[in-house]
């Protein structure tokens, strides 16, 4: 039995850190109604700040601790509150999700710029002394962390139960006026809440670093495991979130011991347990049990964009064909890359734009498509076009699997479910070496007729036109109208006689099928595919990038793909600036989240005439009316 004790303690330690992160997440969500997807990003930034101060700048540990935890942490929170949260009053859930995802992309990318992306080891800062309990040794650091976790939980419970501020925080999400009557300003409460929430995120970050080392991706991923715990507490119950976090830590740790004899099980499944729990819970939870807090407006994307005229469409296709023959080989490759990416983005933008639902697992779908395409054409010798079709067909069931929670969950919980699903595919399927080739990836083939870049890129251009055509057909179909109806009012749609099941399945299936096809095309373009192209955090950036381009029409997705692919060219191929691309798109998503027209919509709303008459009394051109929705600035 005593052989299990060290694992038990280690599980309690990890669980406690999960719990600290989860309580911070629950605290902010239940007080402000905004789920912070960037919670893990905040942990990472504070954790890095602490160790930067301590190790690189030789600040004494207690001072570094105080500075990072009680200055950097709350500061991030106040910035989130002032710049993001208050601008999101009266905006849709989709815009809220996109904003915090943009923030996560910004923080992850920004941390790589500031701190570098090389993982670092750090010295522990808690005492390494141990207490000898006969057969086992307990570390003081372990006991400290477990104690901190308990203190945080009990402290928060007491605070919410008995302090006036705590009671006001419980009321603020439901009724801002009530809080004002109680003598508190709702604005001050939300500032305090965010500061507290990000401080807890930071605490989790600081405590995690000695356990796992300094690495931007790992830290974010670890804290994302706490999202599962928070969801078990329905994002509102601190106690359940705490218990779930501890339980996750224990399961993770004990499975290390129990399944010690099965390394594949330990290495493969163990890290994915929290994501399995997250997706499993959300896939099977009773309808209506999970509710979104706060009043979310209908999706801003409801305002339709003007369609492009046939002449404009033909003009752009002409430009594309011309580019294929005029570009230098290097640029032609980037152009082809952009086209393949555009196909993928069209398949993602289709879902976001038509249903207002956000799929954070699109890389899982596209990646599966890419790998299946390679196995079909290379291993089974299937002809090229059939290989593409098999890739699309193989991905559709995955899309339907994601659609199951979409039938019953409000969009925030759907986004979380897809997040869990994506991480699950990352951890369980893409790690399989026979399937994905592991770290080295797989070589992809093109058919002999299209083996040259020029021919293949021309083929991609045709395919992209096909993708756009399909989207156009869908938008004009009864399915398109039904999705608009479901977006505006699911209740009214059902009481007119339409079940949610088929339209939701249909759009997820089409988006997944096109995504799988896009994956095959992408692999063909790069003549390779690797799991590193398709991890779930890439998926988050894709969402950010597509939103920046615009989701109201496939043209926005195409614009997004070209921006991303040509970003290195646009900044003059300077490797030192290359890492700025991701944070810039993250920032762009934050700014444009409430404008589903995206950059494309902005570009189209600026006309030559407006530029000439800038000094006119009317002032700046206004984008399509109503697309911004009401905003209250604090």
């Amino acid at each position, binding site marked *: 039995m005593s052989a299990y004790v060290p694992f038990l303690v280690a599980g309690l330690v990890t669980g406690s850190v999960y719990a600290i992160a989860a309580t911070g997440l629950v605290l902010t969500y239940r007080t402000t109604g905004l789920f912070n997807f960037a919670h893990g990003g905040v942990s990472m930034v504070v954790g890095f700040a602490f160790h930067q101060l301590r190790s690189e700048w030789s600040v004494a540990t207690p001072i570094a601790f105080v500075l990072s935890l009680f200055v950097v942490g709350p500061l991030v929170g106040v910035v989130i509150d002032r710049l993001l949260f208050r601008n999101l009053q009266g905006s849709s859930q989709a815009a809220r999700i996109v904003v915090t995802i943009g923030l996560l992309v910004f923080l992850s990318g920004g941390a790589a710029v500031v701190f570098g992306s090389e993982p670092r080891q750090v010295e522990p800062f808690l005492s390494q002394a141990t207490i000898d309990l006969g057969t086992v040794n307990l570390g003081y650091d372990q006991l400290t962390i477990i104690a901190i976790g308990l203190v945080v939980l009990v402290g928060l419970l007491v605070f919410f139960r008995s302090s006036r501020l705590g009671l006001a925080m419980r009321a603020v999400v439901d009724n801002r006026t009530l809080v004002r009557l109680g003598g508190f300003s709702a604005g001050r409460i939300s500032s305090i809440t965010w500061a507290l929430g990000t401080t807890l995120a930071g605490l989790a970050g600081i405590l995690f670093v000695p356990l796992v080392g300094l690495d931007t991706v790992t830290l974010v991923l670890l804290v994302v495991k706490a999202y599962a715990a928070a969801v078990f507490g329905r994002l509102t119950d601190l106690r359940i979130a705490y218990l779930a976090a501890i339980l996750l830590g224990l399961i993770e740790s004990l499975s290390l011991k129990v399944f010690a004899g099965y390394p594949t099980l330990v290495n493969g499944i163990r890290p994915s347990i929290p994501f399995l729990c997250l997706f499993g819970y959300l896939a099977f939870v009773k309808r209506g049990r999970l509710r979104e807090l706060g009043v979310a407006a*209908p999706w801003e994307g*409801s*305002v*339709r964009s003007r369609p492009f005229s046939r002449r404009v469409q033909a003009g752009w296709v002409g430009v594309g064909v011309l580019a294929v023959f005029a570009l230098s080989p290097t640029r032609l490759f980037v152009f082809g890359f952009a086209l393949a990416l555009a196909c993928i983005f069209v398949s993602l933008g289709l879902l976001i734009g038509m249903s207002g639902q956000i799929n954070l697992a699109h890389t899982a779908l596209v990646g599966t498509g890419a790998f299946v395409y390679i196995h079909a054409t290379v291993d089974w010798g299937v002809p090229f076009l059939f290989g593409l079709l098999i890739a699309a067909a193989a991905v559709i069931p995955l899309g339907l699997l994601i659609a199951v929670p979409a039938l019953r969950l409000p969009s925030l919980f759907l986004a979380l479910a897809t997040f869990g699903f994506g991480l699950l595919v990352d951890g369980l399927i893409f790690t399989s070496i026979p399937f994905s080739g592991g770290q080295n990836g797989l070589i992809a083939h093109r058919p002999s007729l299209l083996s040259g870049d020029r021919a293949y890129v021309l083929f991609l251009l045709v395919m992209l036109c096909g993708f756009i055509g399909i989207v156009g057909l869908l938008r*004009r*179909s*009864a*399915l398109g*109208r*039904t999705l*608009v*109806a479901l*977006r*505006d*009012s699911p*209740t*009214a*749609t*059902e*009481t*007119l*006689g*339409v*079940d949610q*099941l*088929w*339209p939701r399945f*249909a759009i997820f299936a089409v988006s997944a099928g096109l995504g799988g096809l896009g994956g095959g095309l992408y692999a063909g373009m790069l003549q390779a595919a690797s799991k590193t192209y398709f991890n779930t955090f890439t998926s988050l950036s894709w969402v950010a990038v597509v939103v920046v381009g615009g989701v109201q029409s496939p043209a926005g997705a195409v614009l997004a793909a070209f921006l991303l692919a040509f970003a290195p060219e646009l900044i003059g191929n300077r490797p030192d600036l290359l890492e700025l691309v991701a944070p810039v798109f993250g920032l762009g998503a934050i700014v444009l989240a409430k404008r589903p027209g995206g950059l494309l919509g902005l570009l189209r709303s600026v006309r030559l005439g407006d530029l000439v008459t800038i000094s006119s009394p009317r002032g700046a051109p206004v984008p399509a009316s*109503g697309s911004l929705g009401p905003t209250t600035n604090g």
Partner: protein
Amino acid sequence: MADPKVGGAGASESFLVARDLSVRFGGLLAVDAASIEVDRGEIVGLIGPNGAGKTTIFAALWGLLPLASGSVMLDGHDVTSWSPARRARSGLARTFQRLELFGSMTVRENLRYGTEARALGERPWRLLGGGRHQDLDLAEEILDLLELGPVADRSAGELPVGIGRLIEFGRALASRPNLLLLDEPSSGLDPAETVAFVGQIRRAVERFGCGVLLIEHDMSLVIGVCERLQVIDFGRLVSEGPTAEVVVDPRVQAAYLGSEAVGVVGPSG
């Protein structure tokens, strides 16, 4: 407007027959063995004080709440275990107290979608088609009937509540229902709009022959339009019958109208 699927049952039975509906919220019996019948062409009011259980009965008729007991029959079929969408396909339609419009569609598109929704629900593969199942003429006719022509191409979401109620009513009519449930149709309307709405409900029933069951607070609307009333209090039906008789029933006055209200209501009833 004869629907080929309608008329399977004997003419003796009403389109909607709900028997002994009970709904329990924890320990509270919110609806206690309430029975309701409404046939095509009939306008019936469901009235009662706040918290009497009217809205709960609507939810129960739609299958949005689990029933503690009782059954709901539509056109002779037991639909107690059916989903809301399936009930809608058998001829039930509704409006909402809190508007549930397709705000990003124009008024005309709201009605056109109403005309095709049932076909799309019955045969899901039709979702992949174009607009073949839209009944454009019916949509135009309803636009005329409800005098929505001038705003037909405006976004439904940007119009005032009064017009929103008409759009919902029109959209429900567009689905060619046999029975239309109206949830507080006068809420948010001024007295003039309410009077106009009464006329429109009557004309619609005349034209399309559907039945109407409405929940309403505004007694002038109820008396103006309903042929029959069912009065509910504490989850029980306390009185039912022709409007003129019910409004003078002492039990109803005690439960709902109060002695002052009778003075207002008496002369017109």
